[in-house]
Structure formats: structure tokens, C-alpha cells
């Protein structure tokens, strides 16, 4: 078990290393570089030299990679182009804002998804299932930029209940941010919740049809006790990995939704820095998103390992 964890963590680092290499090489082989982009038409002669000097671009690529990688390991992503700011300072509040948005969506979305999934499975083919499943399929098919725009139209413009777009500075406190995130959270969690609920539903139905659940019923175990003891632990295990994938997918959804709502988070930064060709920031974002992805999947795998007695004892035996 212990070795397995170590092995998985090492594998995670190798994945990150490869991601960093790919983004670095990708940025390198693009025509032009940070300085030509930044200086645009003035990119010649002394100004260009000075820029190279300032950004350290006049040393060989591998040396730059190594020093950049060491920087990243120590938590230093270097400097952004626009505004000459430290990337850490740019990223810090953005990461925080996105985290607030994502965790609110997860905290609301996952419990609702589990609940709806279980309800639809237990009342399979009956009224609750038919209604919830129809809504779920419906909300799954609408892309989030459409649902976000519709939400703005209905809630913000027609009803005037909530602000339609977020007009706050990047560095506000979480408390000030809260009323602004309601609509984005709804937009993000709709698809995610629908996906997860469908997945939980089929998993629960599968377990409900298993021989051991039939056995538990025939043993006289009361219905709800059977659901909680015999069904859910076995049905939700495979759901863990799907939840992890959904969360990872949510990172992408956040990007689009943030742009629609003008939300000062990572997603908008991605779009901004790509259109500004702020390559150091793009690199930093790639690393951050990749490490979130890797660590979420790692956590999900470890949880599955811990909760599944079958896998647990297999590991011990080896």
C-alpha cells in the first residue's frame, strides 16, 4: 500500500515534468518569442537586445528550461510580459477566485448529484426518476455558455435579482465575491451535476440488480438499511473516479463560464494571456492546471484503494 502511494506520487511528478517539457518546447518552437511579441514593431536592435537581457532569453534553451524548472519547484514562475509583474502576484488572487468558484460548484454539485442519482435509481422508471432524468438530460445537452447567457438574461436582466456580470477588482475578499458567484456556480454545476447524477443512477441500478442485494432482501434486511449498508458503499466506489474526472473537466468549464460572466479567475486569465501571447503566464497556467488534474486523480485512486476491501487486501498480499 505504502509503496503504491509512493509510486503513484512519483508517476504524478513524471507527468508534470512531461507537461512542463511540452509547454516549454511548444512555446520555444512557435515563431517569434516573448520579446518580439511584447515589443511588436520595435522588436529590433537595442530594444530587442535589452528585452532579451532583461528576460534572460539570451542563454541557450535548455539552460533556461532548467532555471525555469528550478524556479517552478520553488514556487516561482518568473515574470509576466505585460506589466512586468511577478507571475506569482498575478496568479495568486486569480487562483483564489477560481478556487472559490470551483469549490462552491463542487460543494453544491456533488451532494445534489449523489442525491438525485440515488433517488432516480431507487424510484427507477417511476415519476421521480422520469422527471429528474428528463431535466438532467436536458441540462446536459445545453453547453454552459448558452445556459450562462440565458441565466444572465432571465435572472439579471428580466428579474433583476442578481448582478449579470461580475464587476469587482481581482483582489477582493471572499465575502465580497459571494453574491457575484451565484449565477456562475449555477451555470457550471448544472452540466456537472447532471452528468454525475446519471452516472450514480446507473451505478446504483447495477448494484441493486446484483445477487448480493437480492440476497440481502431475501435475508429480510429492511429496505433503507439495505440501501445504506449493501448498496451505496458498493455503488459509490466506482463513482469516485468519475467524480474526479468531472472535477477535472470542470476546470475547462470554468474557463468558458468565467469569460461569459467576466469573472476575475484563472479561466479569464487563460484567455487573456493567450490573446496577449503572454507566454510565461500560459506556461505557468499549464503547469498549475496539470498539477490540479494529476492530484485530483491521485486522490480519487487512493480513496478507491482505501475504501475497496478487495483492492486493499490485494495490495497487502503483494
Amino acid at each position, binding site marked *: 500500500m505504502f509503496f503504491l502511494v509512493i509510486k503513484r506520487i512519483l508517476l504524478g511528478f513524471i507527468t508534470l515534468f512531461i507537461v512542463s517539457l511540452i509547454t516549454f518546447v511548444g512555446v520555444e518552437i512557435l515563431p517569434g518569442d516573448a520579446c518580439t511579441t511584447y515589443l511588436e514593431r520595435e522588436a529590433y536592435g537595442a530594444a530587442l537586445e535589452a528585452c532579451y537581457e532583461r528576460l534572460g532569453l539570451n542563454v541557450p534553451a535548455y539552460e533556461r528550461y532548467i532555471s525555469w524548472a528550478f524556479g517552478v519547484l520553488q514556487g516561482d514562475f518568473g515574470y509576466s510580459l505585460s506589466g512586468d509583474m511577478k507571475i506569482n502576484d498575478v496568479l495568486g488572487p486569480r487562483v483564489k477566485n477560481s478556487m472559490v468558484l470551483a469549490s462552491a460548484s463542487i460543494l453544491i454539485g456533488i451532494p445534489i448529484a449523489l442525491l438525485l442519482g440515488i433517488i432516480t435509481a431507487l424510484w427507477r422508471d417511476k415519476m421521480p426518476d422520469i422527471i429528474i432524468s428528463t431535466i438532467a438530460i436536458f441540462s446536459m445537452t445545453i453547453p454552459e455558455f448558452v445556459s450562462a447567457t440565458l441565466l444572465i438574461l432571465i435572472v439579471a436582466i428580466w428579474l433583476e435579482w442578481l448582478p449579470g456580470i461580475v464587476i469587482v477588482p481581482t483582489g477582493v475578499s471572499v465575502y465580497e465575491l459571494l453574491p457575484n458567484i451565484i449565477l456562475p456556480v449555477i451555470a457550471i454545476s448544472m452540466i456537472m451535476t447532471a452528468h454525475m447524477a446519471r452516472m450514480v443512477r446507473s451505478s446504483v441500478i447495477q448494484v441493486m440488480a446484483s445477487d*448480493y442485494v*437480492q*440476497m440481502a432482501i431475501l435475508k429480510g*434486511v429492511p429496505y433503507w438499511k439495505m440501501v445504506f449498508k449493501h448498496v451505496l458503499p*458498493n455503488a459509490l466506489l466506482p463513482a469516485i473516479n468519475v467524480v474526479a474526472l468531472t472535477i477535472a473537466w470542470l476546470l475547462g468549464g470554468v474557463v468558458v463560464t468565467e469569460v461569459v460572466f467576466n469573472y476575475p479567475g484563472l479561466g479569464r486569465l487563460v484567455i487573456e494571456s493567450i490573446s496577449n501571447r503572454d507566454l510565461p503566464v500560459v506556461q505557468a497556467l499549464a503547469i498549475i492546471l496539470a498539477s490540479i488534474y494529476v492530484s485530483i486523480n491521485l486522490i480519487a485512486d487512493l480513496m478507491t484503494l482505501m*475504501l475497496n476491501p478487495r483492492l486493499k487486501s490485494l495490495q497487502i498480499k503483494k
Partner: protein
Amino acid sequence: MKTSVQEIKDLTIGFQSQKGEQISILKNISTTINKGETVGIVGESGSGKSTLALAMMGYVKHGLFTISGQCMFHSNNLLEMENKELETIRGRKIAMIPQNAGQSLTPNLKIGYQIDEALKLHTDLKKEDRDKKISELLNKVRLPSPDTMAQRYPHELSGGQQQRVAVAMALAGSPELLLLDEPTTGLDVTTQAHVLELLNFIAKDTGTSMVYVSHDLGAIAQVSDRVIVMYSGEIVLDGPVRSILKNPIHPYTYGLLKSIPKLTLPGLPNSMSGSQPQPGSIKSGCSFYERCEFSDNNCKINSPTLEYIDDLNTSVRCFKHKELTNQNDLNSQTVKSIENKILKNEILDLSNVSISYAKQKFLEQLFNKIEDSNPTVKDIDININKGETLALVGESGSGKSTILKSIAGLLKTKDGIIKFEKDKVLSNDLKERDHSFLRAIQLIFQNPDESLNPNHTVEEIISQPLKLYFGLKGQELKDKIIEVLDKVRLGEFYLTRYPRQLSGGEKQRVAVARAFAAKPDIILCDEVTSALDVSVQAAVLNLLQELKEDFGTTYVFVSHDLAVVRAISDRVAVLYQGRLCEIGPSKNVYKFPSHPYTEVLLGAVLEPDPDVKPKLVAEDIVEEKPPENGCSFQGRCPRILGDICKNEVPPWQTSDNGNLIRCHIKIEDLKNQQSLN
């Protein structure tokens, strides 16, 4: 006066078809289970026997519903009860022992918890008393070290142990009625015999009524007082076990009994033609009409009713039962004895073959070596003559399928050489094998559901070997496919069918056709009949034999069923833990003297005769690994001599009837000891 425990009155259960028709799975079932009685319900797959057993607990599967009738348990109709009420009956008054205990125990809960759950629900015992009771129950079902056993998860137990846990769980509420749904199907022969013996003991010890559902007449014969035979959702025969099995007056039961291969009767049993009708397809007449050898026009038009025959104490659903009453020829059963033209030249020669499942370490991979001092299969020396049928017999884990896979090239051998036609060495690596060798050796798998691609039609399935090995195309290919299908008795209209549109027997015929399409010299049969119903099994065995006689093919036939092996093979090799124990002509292997393991296996065979009891000579412990030194059977041998068996690999001895037996005990001594029993 017998008191009844459960009365089933005119029960019909069915489902709604997509066209909106009501289709019955059970049709007007009426029967009574008496106190202290064990009733066996026999039928082939699809006969509705499991649906009936579940209905006896008031349980109807999702998609099915009760059309009419009642299941009365002490004047309460279980089928109309609320869930709350049922919870107080299930597990307490009526308990179920499921078919596949491995899948019926909840995987995330410990054994102890699952038994405790039943105790908590159905008794008023306190925590300490319950713990004591759990140990008691585990002890009663003869599980070793009950206290540590309770702390284990289901997957940590062997199949036989899981089944015992299920029995313990069922006994927790001291029920009045125990329902057993194929409780020994899927277990090894020796384990099966032990579990049945345990059930018999429990029935006597507790006075519980039992309903034993099975397709296996052998198992039914061992446990039941009364037998109900079901066909296509109807009871066709209901009476005392002896009368049913010794004097079956229904043509289906008669045919079924005749299609079972028996140890005492070498040769292939008669097969019944056809298969059970699909639910809803019979509109009028007797449902067995199509397959019946006694039927006339009356049977086609009118449906027979269940008629009680006084002097036999038996109910029968047949117009013609009188014709069968006096046909007492079950013992003079006609079998087709096999006569293979065996040529004295070796077609396949395994010398000193060892196979290991050990994972290769990095360095070993580099040098393409496997280091394993105790491989799964070791020292296999077998040579097979052209035209012969050699059977490999043993329980699960005996390495019989492993050997087949190595011959086919699917699994690498660790040591040893496999030669084809005397001098052609078959490479360890499938990729290095010559194309003609691949064609020459074909494999038929156990489960046709899994070995036939569900998205291919029968035509595509059979065309593949023809295209691959003979490069046939167009009309020529089509003609050949039809010719091959015809050989396995399937008509041209099967060409466009998909596997899911075929019955189990038809699917296996397609698998046989696919193997024969390659014109192979050797066919490896891996438990080819174990997934089939008895009547279909006989048909497939007969088909295999006919094809062999036509083409002179050599078979290597793997099976756990000694009677099947006895019917079809010329020579038998008995394996235990991947080591050979005995090898010889099948007519002699089944006679004493034999290797102590063969003796154990033979003793555990269940005959469909209530007066032939199995002899249980050895424990059914499961050994995970073969022993490092000495004889492979030392752990379970009832005749163990002592240290010599533990330290030295036994020598091969030849008995006077030509068997090779690998044992330390002298042939003469074996003969004397075994003739005593």
C-alpha cells in the same frame, strides 16, 4: 397427518412483452411443501425453476409480475404482503441459499457482519451471545477457525467456503423453510459432495423443510425426498424421488435421465433433439410435443393436465404416461460406444512441460527466462496418438486448461518441449509458429457466449478461418460455410443469425463448426459442455464424436466431469495441482487400483440414483499452491504414508491393466486397500 409449510395455488408469473402480450414464465403451478420434507425442483435453464423458488419467498424479479395465484405460507399470501411484513418472514421463517455465493455476499462487508445482520434482525440475542452464535454457526457448517473467519471479507474465501457461509447465514434465523437455488453448481466435485452431505445433515439435525432447485439430477437424487420436474414453466412430474428417478413416467424426464452420461456405462448417451420452447411460443398442445418421441396428434392439439397416479403416488402431465410406466429400461440404457481408429503414430508429444504464472522480473524479461522453482504446472509428459481422444481431468486449479493454452500457444511454457507430428517442435511464442501449425490446432472454449463475437453473424464467424487459412472468397467461401454448418446440423438459414439469436446448444455448434472449418488435426476442447444443459450436452458430445469419426481428428478434452470424460475419451490423464497423478486407458482409470486422488474424485461423483451415495474419503480443503517437495496430493491424501510422501516425488508405477500411477504406495497395496471399500 402431514402439516404443510407452504402451499402454492395456481401460480402464474409472467412479463409483458413489447407487443403488450402477457407471457407466462410459470403456468398454473400448484404444489405443497410439507414440514420436514426436502423437495427437489429439477429443470433445464429457462424452465422457471428459479422464478418459482423466489416466488416462495414472495420475491418477484424486476420486470416480472404475478398474473394469478398465491403462495400461501401459514395462511398468508406472500405475494400480496407489504415489504414490512415480508421482512419479518424472510430470513426468519424462510431463508434462501443462493446459487453463486461468491456474488451473493456483499463485497464490502465482513463475513461476521453479514451473519450478525441476520441474527440482529431475526433473534433477540445480545451482542456477546450473537458473537458466540456466529462462531457456533460457522462451526456447524464446518468452516475452519470460526473466529478469524468472521473477520474476513467474502473474496478472501474459496468457493466452497463462501457457500458454507451462505448456509450459515441462512441458518441464523432458524428458518422453517430453506430454499436452495443451485447451491452447488460451479463448485468442484469433491466440494459439491461435501456441501450436499452438510445440507443433508442440517435437514436431519434441524428438521427444516428444504426446497432444492437444480438442473443436476445427481445432486437432486442425493438430497430430496420428493422431486418436481419442470418444463417450460409447468410442473410435468411430481412424486417421490425413487419413483421419479427409477421409473420416470414423463417422456421429458425419461429422456433427460437417458441423456446423462454415467460412470458405470461407458459410451455416449442418447440425446434429446431440439430445445425448450421460448416463453409464449406454445399456444396450444403439450409444450414438450416438439421433442417428444411418444407424441401423437392429440398431444399437438390438446394440452395435458397434471394427473395423479395413485399407485405411484406421482402426478404427471402427459397423455401417454401409461406407455412409459412399463418401460423400465433405464438400466439397460442404450449407449453408443465409441470406437476410434487410433493410429500408432504420435501427433502431439509433450515432454517435461512446465508452465509458470509467475511475473517475470525485469532481468528475466531481458533474457526471456522464468525463474520459478514451484511452477503451476510441472513435469507433464503426455503423448497423444493420431485419432485418439485424450481427456485431462481434475478440479479447478489442477492446471488442465493451462496445459491446453500452452498447446495452443496462448501461454508460454517455462520448460519442456511440445512436438507436433513427432519431429516438428511447436514454438513457445505464438508469433513464431508456422501458419500451418496454427491451422492444425484449433480450440473450442467453454462458454460460447464469450467466445463468439456478438457483433458477427454466423456467416462471418465461420468465414474467418476459411479466409485466413484457405484464402476462400465469394461463392466458394459461401458454399464452404454452408457445408461446414451442415456438418454441425445447422441449416442455411442460420447464416444471417447473430449469436444472441441462438440457443446455448446452437451457439456451441457454431463454435464447433468454426473449429472444424480450419480442417484441424487436433482440436482442444476446454470444458465444452459444462455451460450446457444436460440434454444439449449429450447432443454436443454425440456431434463431436461423429465429426471425429468423419475426419479422424484428435481431441484433447478437458473436463471436470468424470462421467462425461468416461463417455467420450480413449485415455484419461488425472491432474492435481498441475502435476500428473495417473494416466491410462479410460476403461482402466475408472477401475481400481487407482491413484488416491482418482479414488477421491470417483467417490465424489453424484449418480442420478438416490441409492448410490458418494464416498467422501478426503477433505475438500483448497490448496493455493502446489507443495514444494514430494507428492502433489500429500495435503489431502487419505492414504498418506508419511515423510516419504512429503519429501520425495513419487515414482511412476504400472498397474497390471496398463495404467500409469504416480504414487509411493505399491500397486499391490493400493489394490488391496481399495478393494476393501
